[in-house]
């Protein structure tokens, strides 16, 4: 049992079911909107209404007096959907067509959507579909993708993602939607205007006293209508914003993906070390390079792909999501993460224990002689070698040697000796899973220092075989000097000195080429020029620049770097490098005493 209404269509009376009525009303309204800007709009609508009436009349007879959904559908199929009428329009009017009211079965929003255009396809119709979305020639889109393809295959990736997410335009309606109104400020304002128009129409309907029960149901409160208006406004804004975000997602996602590919294909350098070498320096195994990269590709690549995917969905307003795609992406990501974590943990545990091997060399330099310290040339950089920074240190890897050899700089310090003789302490450090492993590595570090008479030669590099892997290896050289011993630091030690403390506060590099004496306070420079000393002491000087002021009711004493000034009611005394100046205030006598 369904409720029926009685309507007057082009002078004929029809009994019509509620649903069918809504359908017919929506259809006629859509037609009216379609021809809104046309001269003779009312006449066209009247003609069409008359024809509809004729068609519907044929559907009724004595045993079937009520029009149902199906009758309306049939009539509409004969007449055609408003979108089909566009054929008779000139192009400039296509953009003036309006969107339909919500709930219209026939004439849903003509907002443009992206589809794969199978009619003009080369492969999957992705490019031609996008081209029709952006109103450009598919050639440009194809060209862009091909160029991107040579950019490490990103084009291919994009194409596959797009192929998956963009549906094919199969029905005529979808094909029309593919070329529908673009979403821009015009269409948004149009939507808002239409909404306002419909609001007016409904209010008029109501005022005209069409007071069937049906209308009570259909008419929402005015509050609802305002809410609807804002809903549409914000939906439009949201669409524009989401498109901007989508574009950003795609842009950054693609850029980062290219960066990832560069790493995976061993292009580009980390601290002037190729990616493979970088990984190898930690793992020491070739196969783990492969696994590490696989892990990295999955762990970083998959989120980036999803990022691009979501961005594209935002741009094209696709809201369908594929569970299988999300799930498999998540699973692959998890696998990649696990691989990366396993490898990293394996390496990290190698750093868990540290050992220091100490070796003391006692020199027999008489205390009266000056100790000359210089660097020996055990290693000189070859063309094939790579150098890079790791931690705070500078390293070289000699790849021509088989197996490859690592070269690192020792750190030289000068401290006060506990006894009266000069000695050199060499500390080799390395890390490992356990103490034994660490000490084995430390033992494998090759470093020597030689002493001949009063000359101490410290090798400029220590070395170990690359199969030992980088495990925090390091060498500290401590030169222990007794008090009053004089030491000369050769210029070639510049890069080896490491935070050597001295009384004068001179930096490591500037300490070379000078004589130093160990005093009770520490190392003191003997051959530094005044300027060097001043430069390095400047900071301390500036700290003492704060003047001292002593005030009482009648006298004011001011002491600063320029000298001492005393102001009182009777006299003004100034003591500076210029001499002593006394000014008596009552008779303006001036007494100046030069130094």
């Amino acid at each position: 049992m369904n409720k029926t209404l009685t309507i007057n269509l082009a002078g004929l009376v029809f009994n019509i079911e509620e649903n069918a009525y809504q359908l017919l009303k929506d259809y006629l309204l859509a037609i009216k909107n379609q021809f809104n800007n046309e001269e003779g709009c009312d006449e066209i609508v009247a003609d069409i209404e008359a024809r509809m009436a004729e068609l519907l009349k044929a559907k009724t007879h004595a045993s079937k007096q009520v029009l149902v959904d199906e009758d309306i559908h049939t009539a509409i199929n004969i007449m055609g959907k408003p979108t089909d009428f566009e054929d008779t329009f000139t192009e400039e009017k296509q953009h003036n067509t309006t969107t339909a009211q919500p709930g219209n079965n026939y004439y849903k929003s003509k907002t443009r959507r992206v589809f794969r255009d199978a009619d003009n396809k080369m492969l999957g119709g992705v490019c031609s579909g996008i081209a029709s979305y952006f109103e450009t020639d598919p050639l440009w889109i194809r060209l862009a993708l091909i160029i991107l393809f040579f950019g490490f295959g990103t084009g291919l990736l994009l194409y596959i993602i797009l192929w998956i997410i963009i549906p094919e335009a199969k029905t005529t309606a979808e094909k029309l939607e593919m070329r529908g109104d673009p979403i821009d400020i015009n269409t948004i304002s149009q939507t808002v205007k239409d909404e306002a128009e419909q609001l007016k129409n409904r209010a008029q309907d109501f005022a005209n006293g069409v007071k069937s029960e049906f209308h009570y149901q259909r008419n929402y409160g005015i509050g609802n209508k305002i809410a609807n208006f804002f809903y549409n406004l914000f939906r439009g804004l949201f669409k524009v914003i989401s498109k901007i975000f989508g574009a950003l997602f795609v842009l950054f996602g693609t850029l980062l993906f290219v960066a990832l590919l560069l790493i995976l294909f061993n292009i580009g350098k980390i601290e002037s070390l190729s990616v493979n070498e970088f990984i190898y320096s930690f793992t020491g195994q070739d196969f783990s390079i492969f696994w590490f990269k696989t892990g990295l590709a999955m762990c970083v690549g998959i989120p980036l792909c999803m990022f691009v995917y979501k961005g594209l969905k935002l741009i094209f307003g696709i809201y369908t999501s594929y569970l299988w795609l999300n799930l498999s992406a998540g699973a692959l990501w998890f696998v990649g993460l696990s691989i990366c974590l396993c490898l990293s943990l394996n390496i990290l545990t190698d750093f868990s224990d540290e050992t220091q091997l100490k070796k003391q060399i006692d020199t027999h330099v008489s205390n009266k002689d000056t100790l000359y310290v210089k660097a020996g040339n055990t290693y000189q950089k070859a063309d094939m070698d790579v150098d890079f920074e790791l931690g705070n240190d500078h390293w070289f890897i000699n790849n021509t040697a088989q197996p490859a050899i690592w070269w690192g700089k020792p750190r030289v310090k000068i401290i006060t000796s506990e006894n009266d003789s000069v000695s050199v302490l060499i500390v080799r450090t390395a890390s490992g899973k356990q103490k034994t492993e660490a000490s084995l590595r430390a033992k494998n570090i090759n470093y020597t220092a030689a002493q001949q008479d009063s000359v101490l030669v410290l090798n400029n590099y220590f070395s170990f075989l690359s199969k030992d892997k980088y495990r925090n290896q390091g060498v500290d050289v401590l030169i222990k000097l007794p008090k009053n011993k004089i030491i000369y630091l050769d210029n070639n030690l510049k890069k080896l000195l490491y935070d050597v403390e001295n009384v004068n506060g001179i930096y490591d590099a500037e300490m070379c080429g000078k004589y130093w004496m160990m005093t009770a306070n520490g190392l003191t420079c003997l051959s530094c020029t005044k300027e060097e000393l001043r430069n390095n002491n400047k900071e301390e000087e500036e700290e003492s620049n704060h003047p001292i002021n002593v005030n009482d009711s009648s006298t004011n004493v001011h002491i600063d770097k320029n000298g001492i000034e005393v102001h009182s009611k009777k006299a003004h005394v100034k003591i500076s490098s210029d001499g002593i100046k006394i000014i008596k205030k009552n008779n303006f006598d001036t007494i100046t005493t030069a130094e």
Partner: protein
Amino acid sequence: MKQTINTENTQSQMRKGVLELCTLSVLAIGEAYPTEIIEQLKSSKMMIVEGTLYPLLTRLKNANYLTYRWEESTAGPPRKYYKLTEQGVKLLSELENTWDEMAHAVNKLLKENKRK
């Protein structure tokens, strides 16, 4: 607004131009009401949906190429019987000439350049 050439647009332009000619040609025989015109157009596979015809007739009428008179109908509301005006006849013959020339020229061109 930016104008682009696409298949859909070109096709609709072609159809639009020809539809006017066909409608005028149907009316050249004598008076007819829309449904009759549509039936004849449909039998020549020119039309897709009826709705297309109504705005066209109104536009032609407003441009004084057609006139109409009302006639009561037993099957429904009164019908508009359209017929050509003098201007309409003139337009028809002009359009016919243009069509002949164009069809000839286009066919010839297409034939010559037909891909082997």
